[in-house]
């Protein structure tokens, strides 16, 4: 009696356990096939298509978008309901988790530096045909850099060719060097304001000139706290670092293998220059966002984007607001026309498993066309459609602020020559940023002489091994998957 009871109990327990396991492991595949999307219902009020758009907008931007959707999009397409979602935390990790769980949104915010794993795992819907048959927007209407940012060819594993997997919604790069003329001396202005081709944008300084200026312009009080900064990077430090490397003809990774280049002496020299500048400017004690204090006249130079004029009121500096290309290693005829990058661009991608792909595209083309015009009016970002530059942004009748027009014209010029910095297929920009963020502070402490814990060689070693780890893991995963 006893023995058989134990057996029953054991079996019951084990089967409970196994059932739970099977149920969970097996239930991962996404739900069954859907009905075909019915385009004809888009225009009628009885249509029930739902499109979810997951972005990293903040709450205020989302509210404005919601308003525009109600005022215009839903008038044109009453049958499509748009659900705007935002969340906090690591955006792209959340997206990955959503894909794993089958709950990814229909439209997903996308950046050029992050797109690689999504296209490699075939999560995204190619957009070429949608644009071809669209009545509102065609691919050629969009800035050429869009193709570089979001086209990908799996067979050659190269960007810039192949199908289009996402489309830029605006271009908000932190790629230009703003400076406050009031804080610079005559000689310094001569260096930074040199403009050989007279396009209103300062020619790029050399690294030497730049690093000297960035340190000379620092002012401190008696206790040693910085009161005026020479240079602060924009919001995204690692992207600025990547820009500096590109401007030295280098890259933070080797395109053939994906491994980092941080053991390379030339790369280390650039890092040395860059981080010394930041360390002397007391970067890790300076507030995270440099734009408000730039506006207040406490920062001589900072990297920024067009949105700084609107969002942070840079235009309030009036004629004192100067703009120049970011520094290059050596100045040649080519580098005088330095190429800014667009990893600050933000875009839309459509989930391949979405059941509302056509409706999603309707939203996207509407956004580019209608909301893009709104954005252009505010000069918050450069909208994706080229025509809005001349018709709205640089149009004195619409944009009456002369300073903002001047800055917009500079960005407009630079956009014509824009290119995208190489993407690492095996280690995303965010991963690189994560490692950099974690140890850069220690590096700067050492440079300032506070301790000897993190000399540059050690920092480079950390970056290298961290990136190597990521690359190895992802490569192995990708190759085993077949």
């Amino acid at each position, binding site marked *: 009696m006893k023995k058989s009871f134990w057996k029953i109990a054991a079996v019951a327990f084990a089967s409970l356990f196994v059932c739970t396991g099977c149920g*969970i*492991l097996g*239930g991962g595949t996404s739900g069954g096939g859907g009905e075909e999307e019915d385009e004809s219902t888009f225009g009628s009020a009885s249509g029930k298509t739902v499109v979810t758009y997951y972005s990293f907008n903040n709450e205020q931007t989302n509210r404005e978008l919601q308003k525009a959707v109600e005022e215009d999009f839903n008038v044109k397409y009453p049958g499509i309901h748009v659900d705007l979602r935002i*969340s906090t935390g690591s955006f792209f990790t959340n997206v990955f988790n959503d894909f794993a*769980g089958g709950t990814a949104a229909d439209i997903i915010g996308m950046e050029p530096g992050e797109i690689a794993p999504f296209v490699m795992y075939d999560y995204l819907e190619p957009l070429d045909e949608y644009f071809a048959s669209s009545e509102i927007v065609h691919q050629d209407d969009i800035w050429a850099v869009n193709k570089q940012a979001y086209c990908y060819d799996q067979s050659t594993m190269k960007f810039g060719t192949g199908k289009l997997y996402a489309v830029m919604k605006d271009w908000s790069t932190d790629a230009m060097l703003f400076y406050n003329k009031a804080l610079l001396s005559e000689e310094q202005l001569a260096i930074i304001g040199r403009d050989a081709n007279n396009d209103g944008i300062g020619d790029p300084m050399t690294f030497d000139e730049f690093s000297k200026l960035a340190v000379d312009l620092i002012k401190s009080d008696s206790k040693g706290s910085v009161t005026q900064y020479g240079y602060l990077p924009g919001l995204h430090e690692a992207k600025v670092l990547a820009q500096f490397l590109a401007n030295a003809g280098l890259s933070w990774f080797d395109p053939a293998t994906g491994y980092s280049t941080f053991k390379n002496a030339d790369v280390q020299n650039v890092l040395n220059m860059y981080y010394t500048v930041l360390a002397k400017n007391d970067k890790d004690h300076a*507030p*995270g*966002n440099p734009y*408000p*204090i730039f506006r207040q006249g406490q920062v001589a130079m900072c990297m920024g984007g067009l949105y700084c004029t609107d969002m942070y009121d840079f235009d309030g500096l009036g004629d004192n607001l100067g703009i120049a290309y970011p520094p290059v290693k050596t100045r040649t005829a080519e580098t005088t026309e330095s190429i800014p990058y667009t990893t600050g661009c933000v875009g839309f991608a459509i989930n391949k498993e979405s059941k509302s792909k056509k409706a999603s595209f309707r939203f996207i083309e509407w956004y580019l066309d209608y909301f893009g015009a709104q954005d252009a009016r505010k000069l918050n970002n450069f909208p994706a459609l080229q025509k809005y530059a001349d018709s709205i942004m640089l149009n004195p009748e619409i944009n009456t602020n002369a300073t903002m027009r001047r800055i917009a014209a500079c960005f407009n010029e630079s956009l014509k020559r824009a290119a995208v910095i190489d993407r690492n297929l095996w280690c995303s920009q965010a991963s690189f940023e994560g490692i950099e963020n974690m140890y850069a502070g220690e590096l700067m402490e050492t440079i300032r002489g506070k301790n000897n814990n993190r000399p540059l060689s050690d920092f480079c070693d950390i970056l290298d091994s961290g990136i190597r780890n990521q690359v190895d893991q992802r490569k192995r995963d990708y190759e085993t998957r077949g």
Partner: protein
Amino acid sequence: MQTATDPMQAVPAEAEPRKPKNSFRGKKMRTLRKNIAFYIILALIGVMMVLPTAVMIFSSFKSFDEYYALKFRFFPSVWHFDNYVRVFTSSEHFFTWVGNTIVLIVLNTVLCTFSTILVAYGFAKFRCKLADVLFMVLLCTMMIPWAVTMVPSFVVWARLKLTDTIFPLLLPSIGGSAFYTFMFKQNMRGIPNEIMEAAEMDGAGSFKRLWTIVVPNCVPAIATMVLFTAMGIWGDYLGPLIYLRTPSKFNISLGLNMLRSQTTDGKQDAPMLLAASVLMAIPSIALYFLGTGLFSKGISLQGGVKG
């Protein structure tokens, strides 16, 4: 029996031998000095323990500029009660966060307590070899690092498409709490078996015996569990952090965390955040005072069987 002699009075020598005059007094003095020393030490350290909290409270009434002013002042020069008001308007989701947290607390506490009572009863009153083995297993579960279960739990909930819902935060309470199961079991063991058997012979089923005999005797322990569990969930941050992502679904801890990253000029709105911290601490303190008397009745590691 010694009678205390009045040192001021001369006493005839032929009385019972008494202790020398001074030692009684000396001992009292020594004790007094010892006590004073202890009080001083405790008070000093006590001040150090309280000081951060006090600073937090006072700083929460400062204005933004005064908080970041170069010269530190302990007391605010002007008492800005509006910092507290601003806590409520800091986000459109604020009251939703509070509501979410209350829902979490109520559901979790009820589920967990109910479950723990049942499980402890099983362990306490139904002794068998299987029970002993499983109890060891129960104790060992307290040793499983959170990291080991975190990763697969997350994967499982993600595959079930239930991240960002209440389920990952609620369902684990089904198992009750290992710690409190242990505590309840101790308590329940203290109820004499004779009473249980008498009730059984009167025809009361085991379930009925649980609720009519055992539970009423364990009320202090149960109340302790309820209060401390509630306190824990009120302040729970690391748990929901993994699963919740939409701002409107946050509990109060995650909500405040979201406010932490809002800066003006690169500086957090520290007085408002500290005000929020104070407000958040008040229910916890209230719950603690409710539970504190019950706790010392409920726990008994030193003593043996109770009652």
